[in-house]
């Protein structure tokens, strides 16, 4: 049974300039213990999708217009704020992009790691302290007991991300949402953090949603992959299947622009054009203006996400028609 079932999620921002259709009819599901990667460029709606689930969309101007998200036998999108607060940090945790600002500079690290436990009423201060030390040790912080009383500025960026991971998993959540957890870190640390995430996930058996713009990050960590473009899912499949045989021109283009796909010294591939303005109503396939394979039909008909092979869905009309 699925741990989380998101159905037809639509989130819009009602700004003075117009309505920004940040997320349009996104559906996916996630089994317990599974890792799902959500990939897309800036503004593709991948973060908004995750934030919508936890009710963290700034409202106004943001609004979840429709959809449902079944989790623990309830609909996250219909929960009262109170019920949502009880889920946040206990059943679903989140880690953020920039470890430099994600910790309160005025609070000791120990106090911050203990906070979710104390907040959700999991035992006494003493117990919480013990578990915080264990959690810090588990994420590879040496002399964890001693470092409990340090302040965030006494940690490096990678160490802070480790602290944040410890903080997120300390309540044994069923789901961890990681929003670009490695983007702000340098490459060697990135690998360590991804490795750590994977280990924590296996140890705790939690599901992970990994949001990233880097296909390379997804390749080694995620079992399944969702590619988003202009607020819509354009491709959804097992990661291996996507890498072996991408079934959407956008995914193909993303993969072609990976530096590793190129010879040394060769110019890197870039996707021509810009992502569409999400305030303008879209007609046809949102990727059509940048797509090398686009035909007239792509500009007329709006494609839906449809299965094109077993467990492999694509929102490309021409792929669906077996033309590509």
């Amino acid at each position, binding site marked *: 049974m699925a741990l989380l079932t998101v159905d037809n999620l639509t989130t819009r921002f009602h700004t003075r300039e117009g309505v920004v259709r940040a997320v349009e009819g996104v559906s996916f599901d996630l089994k317990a213990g599974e890792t799902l990667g959500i990939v897309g460029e800036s503004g593709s709606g991948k973060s908004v999708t995750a934030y919508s689930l*936890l009710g*963290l969309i700034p409202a*106004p101007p943001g609004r979840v217009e429709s959809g449902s998200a079944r989790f623990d036998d309830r609909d996250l999108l219909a929960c009262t704020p109170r019920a*949502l*607060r*009880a*889920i*946040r*940090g*206990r059943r679903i*945790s*989140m*880690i*953020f*992009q*920039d470890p430099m*600002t*994600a*910790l*309160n*500079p*005025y*609070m*000791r690290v*120990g*106090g911050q790691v203990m*906070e*979710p436990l104390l*907040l*959700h009423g999991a035992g006494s201060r003493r117990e919480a*302290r013990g578990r915080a030390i264990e959690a810090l040790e588990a994420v590879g912080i040496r*002399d964890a*007991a*001693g470092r*409990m*009383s340090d*302040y965030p*500025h006494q940690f490096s960026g990678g160490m802070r991300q480790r602290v*944040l991971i410890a*903080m997120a998993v300390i309540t044994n959540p069923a789901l961890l949402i990681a929003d670009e957890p490695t983007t702000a870190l340098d490459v060697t640390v990135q690998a360590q953090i991804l490795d750590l995430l994977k280990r924590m996930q296996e140890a705790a058996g939690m599901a992970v949603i990994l949001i990233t713009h880097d296909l390379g990050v997804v390749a080694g960590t995620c079992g399944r992959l969702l590619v988003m473009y202009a607020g819509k899912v354009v491709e959804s499949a097992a990661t291996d299947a996507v890498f072996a045989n991408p079934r959407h021109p956008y995914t193909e283009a993303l993969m072609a622009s990976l530096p590793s796909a190129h010879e040394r010294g060769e110019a890197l591939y870039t996707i021509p054009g810009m992502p569409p303005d999400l305030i303008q109503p879209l007609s046809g396939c949102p990727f059509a203006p940048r797509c090398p394979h686009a035909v007239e039909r792509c500009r007329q008909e709006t494609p839906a996400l449809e299965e094109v092979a077993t467990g492999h869905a694509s929102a490309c009309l021409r792929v669906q028609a077996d033309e590509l």
Partner: protein
Amino acid sequence: MGEGTRQSAAMIEKGTSLWRDAWRRLVRNRLAVAGGVTLAVVVLAVVVVPCLLPYSYAEQDLDLGASSPSARHWLGTDQLGRDLLTRIFYGGRISLMVGVAATAVSLVVGVTYGAVAGYAGGRADAVMMRLVDILYALPFTIFVIILMVFFGRSIVLLFLAIGAVQWLTMARIVRGQVLSLKEKEFIEAALAMGLTRRRILMRHLIPNVLGPVIVYATLTIPQVMLMEAFLSFLGLGVQPPMSSWGLLVKEGVETMEEYPWLLVFPSAALSATLFSLNFLGDGLRDALDPRASKD
């Protein structure tokens, strides 16, 4: 583990709060300690000493008139023959009381108001800050006079009136700080962790704005003391024969050529207190910022 763990555990038990830590850092700052000690002595003195003095603040000796410091009157007397030393101690009571009370009002109201406005944002913020703008635009003197006319003259009202004006700036400072802070990811992380907005405000936002708030508060105290002198000069504040430091200085200035001691001593008391406050304020700001410490 073992030894090291126990040792560091003991360290944590000793100082789990920001406050205890700040205290440790504060006592290491010599200027701040000197300021604090001076301030404590001044406070103690204005509370205790007046009971021990042989004169009362209103006792006149018209035959004596203004006399320079002597064995009988250590700091001399004013034109009415009142003992200056006694008047300085009594005046200190009023000045410190006004300073602290009005600053406390401005602190409580200003920090809460500013933090709520900044954190709420949007329309609530706009409405709340426009209200501040309107109050800002009211001429202070007229505002106080209206208050006094409606509610009669009293020292308590004086505190309230000054505090009611001082919190405006505090609210603006705090709001600005909170506006920039709330974009930081740790606030978002706190929300994602399931904290209520109220708890985020109390636990994460307000401690982060304490630095500038404390510095501004220590600057507010002298400002308030001077404001009190001004109001007293207009006859709206302290009523003679009672006096305050601000008032004594003001009177001293008028006669500084003939009776310089009437200016020098009250000014010295006022300046010493203000200096101490500033040193203490600077020390507090540094002590409250964990990043400022070297350890």
